[in-house]
Structures are given as C-alpha cells and as structure tokens.
C-alpha cells in the first residue's frame, strides 16, 4: 500500500495515493467535473489526459491554469476550480 496524500478540492478534503495526478485523484473519488467554462458555465473534465488540451485546468495554491492531469497531488495542496 503506497502512502496516502491529503489535499482539498474547493475546500473538500480528498485523499489519494502518492504520485497520482489531481485529475486522477478526483476521478477516483467519483468527482469528474473539474471546472466550469468562462462563458457558457459548462462543466469540464479531463479530455486529452496528457497536458495538450488544457481542458482540466484548475487553480493550485493560488496559481491559475494548472493542468490537473499532469500535476501530482501533494499533502496540504489547495486546489480550486476555475470558472
């Protein structure tokens, strides 16, 4: 069993395995929606999964436009949806 990591997504506590991306951690707990779009307020999730499409961008510790499919979840990370 690998080490657990605890972070928050929109204030909600989330646990995942060490080394998992933020997007993978959220899908593993059944939370597919990662953000809503700027104009249409449409929900978006992971799409290309490899950092090309920027559809899964979130705010990580206050830094915007971070690709949640690439960034590993870390302890005490504060992740928020962009909208």
């Amino acid at each position, binding site marked *: 069993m690998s080490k657990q990591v605890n972070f928050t997504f929109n204030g909600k506590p989330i646990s995942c395995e060490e080394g*998992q991306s933020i997007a993978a951690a959220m899908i593993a707990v059944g939370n597919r929606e990662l953000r809503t779009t700027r104009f249409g307020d449409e929900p978006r999730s*992971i799409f290309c999964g490899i950092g090309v499409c920027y559809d899964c961008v979130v705010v990580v510790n206050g830094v915007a436009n971070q690709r949640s499919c690439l960034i590993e979840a870390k302890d005490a990370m504060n992740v928020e949806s962009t909208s």
Partner: protein
Amino acid sequence: MIIVIGAGPAGLAAAEAASRNGSEVALLDSASRLGGQYWRHRDSVKGYRSHRAGLLFDKVLQAPSVTHICEATVWSIERVSDLFRVNYLQGGIESSLTAEKLIIATGAYDRSLPFPGWDQPGSMTPGAAQALVKGQGVLPGKKVIVAGTGPFLLPVATGLAEAGAEIVGLFDANSPLRWSLSPRALLLNLSKVSELVYYAKLLRRYRIAPQFKRVVSSFDHGKVTISRINSDFTIKEAASQTFDVDVVAVGWGFLPDVTLGGIVGCLQRVDSDGTTVFSVDADQRSSQKNVLIAGEATGIGGADLSLLEGEIAGLSASGQPIPTSLRRARYRKQLFAHALKISYPIPTGWQSWPQGSTTICRCEEVKHSEISESVSELGAEDSRTAKLFTRAGMGLCQGRICSRNVSEIVAGLTHCVVSNEERISSSNRPIASPISLGQLGDGKK
C-alpha cells in the same frame, strides 16, 4: 553535448544509441517518469512485447553519459551562434540548457473530431483513458465505449477491460477489409500480424466484439448514440444503437506536435493524410544543421518505427556508423506506417456530425454555428479569417485540438481544399507552451 527532447520510445532509443560512444546526452521530458505517452507506466509496462520498454529504461538510466531531466516543459529554443539554447520550465522555474546538437522526439497526441457532447465530462480521448489506467492506476469509468479509428483502440479497450472496466462497445469507423489494400506491407511486417492475434485473443477473453463502420454520433450525460456511416463518413443510419455509459473514449489517430522543430526552422511537409510532419533525410537529419528528428513528428508510425528512427538519430548525431540492417528495418516499418494511413482514412463526411450548437474550439467555447456564420455572414474565406472572427484556436491549447478541424470545416463550407501552406501554418505556434510574464522575468539565463 546532445539534447534529446522527449523520453518516449524515439527519445529513449536516441539517447541510448548516442551514449554508446560516450557522447554526453541530456534527455529532457515533461513527465516525471521515462516512457512517454505510449510506454507510460506505474510499476510495469503491459502489452504486446512490452519487455522492450524495461530493457531500454534500464540502459538509459544506467548510461553514465545520459542525464535525465524530468518534469521539464520546453517552451522555446534559441540559436546562440553555433549552439542551441533550450529554454524550459521546471516546477514553475525557468531554466535553460545549451548544446551543439538537438534530437527532437516530441511524439504525438490523439486527434479528436467534434460531435455533439464531445465536450461533456465523460468524453475523453483513448489516450486519456489509457493514461488514467496505465499511468495513474485509476479507471476512467466502470462502463466504457471505445471508438474512433485505428489499431490504438485495441490496446486501450483491452487495457481498460484488464483493469476491470466493462467495455460496452468497441467501434471502428473503418472496415478491417481495407488492410487487403496493403498486402506487401503486411507480408514485410509479419510481426504485426502476430500482434493482431495477441489482441484478438485478449478481445475474446474479455468478450469484446468490435463493430465496424460505426461512430459515436452523440454523447449526452451518459447516453451514447452510435450511428452507422457510409465510406465517406456521412451518417447512414442516425441511431442504430444507444447505450448508457460512464465514459466514451473516441480517437482518430494521432497528430504530431511540430512546434519545437518549427521554432528552429526545420522544413515541414504535409503527409498523404493531411498531417503536418517534418522532412528528414536517411540519417533522420532535418533541414536545419545539427537538428535531428525521430518518431511520430516525422510521420505517424507507432512505437516500432519510432524506436528505429530514434536509434538511427542517436547514432547519426553522435557520429557512429548506421548499420544497413537498421535502415532496412526502418523501411519495412515505414511501409507499414503507409498502410496504416490507407487502412484508417478520415474522409470529410465527419463535418456533418456537429450540430450548430456543438462546440468546435473547446478553449474559447466557439460553436459550429459561429464558424459557419463567419463564413456565410462575415465572408471568411479561409480558416485564418474565421479564427480571427470567432477566436477559434486562440485559447490555452493554442489550437492543438481544434485548429485542423476548423481549417477543414471552413474548407468544407467554402467548397475548397485546405492548402498545404495553411496546414503547416495552423500546426505551428510561436511558443511551445504558455508561460507567464512573471515566470519569464524571474528566470535565470
């Protein structure tokens, strides 16, 4: 020193080959682990002949003259007299590295075509589904449909099934009978036939029955509509089947990322299937002195061809002789790559799948109706003008997902064909990834 950009099959093979005579190699990759998109792995790589990956990983990691720099996103390359300065972001910090020679092995990403609902959560590329399973150990969903076209759908569907997903359907838009058009390529690549047998056994084990000449024509909150199509990809029977699923993974082959080679000025050409790729000579040298290119960026051909091209590029860059056997093997795989294009074409009929309200540019949320209005009402005659009117392709992904589709939609609406100049210009970006002015200002040179 030689800088290899990309640590997938081509980049790994290049780094390993170049290190054989002790040449200093820096292997840069944006991921945290070796392997690239195809050989991404957690503990072990599974799949056909995947032991090759482990052997190559070990050789590269043990080679004393190879330095692996991970989590480094290259955003630009500059020429400084006879040297190349590669600028990259690592953990939000800008750094750079200088070398005499470059080997670009930046690979490819899934090509996507728009259909109603392709922007909803639950719709993703087969590459994303595979990345979640192989790279993250997470199932994208319990019930999955895999669709699109090409042989990559097989490892994705069987990999998902192996990880515990229910494959509700596997749909290829093309017929496997098209392989009969390429007998010579098959005869010279009998190993590919045994690879097919390997996947056929897995499909049987997981009770997956592939269906052909069918596409996912809409996805609406878990409801998937499958349509039968004609050979030109127009819809033949709008709703032949419907399913309830968690995920649709739809992919249409691959697009190479040509941005970095484009920044250095390497000559590009349009492949027979309309894809922008690099021109290289028999030693994998680009049109620019001391810049070599290997793998998917010279034409989509899969991991086998990428390994050979990478090895040749590594030997060539480090001044070692290139065995004739390698060149022959590459020729055979190139024939197979050509057969792939003949077997899995994407004719223009897909342009009839989106509705007016269907998103075409995901980043800037541009609908199909806005693009058609830019042509019919505003008089846009080419995609560049349509993009200026609508902002399609101007978002964070810099048009990597939609640019080719927008070009082809505008050409379809104006009854033109997309020119090679337009295909090449819409595939290139002035910088390779978004960088904030703050990061640029804080960087050390």
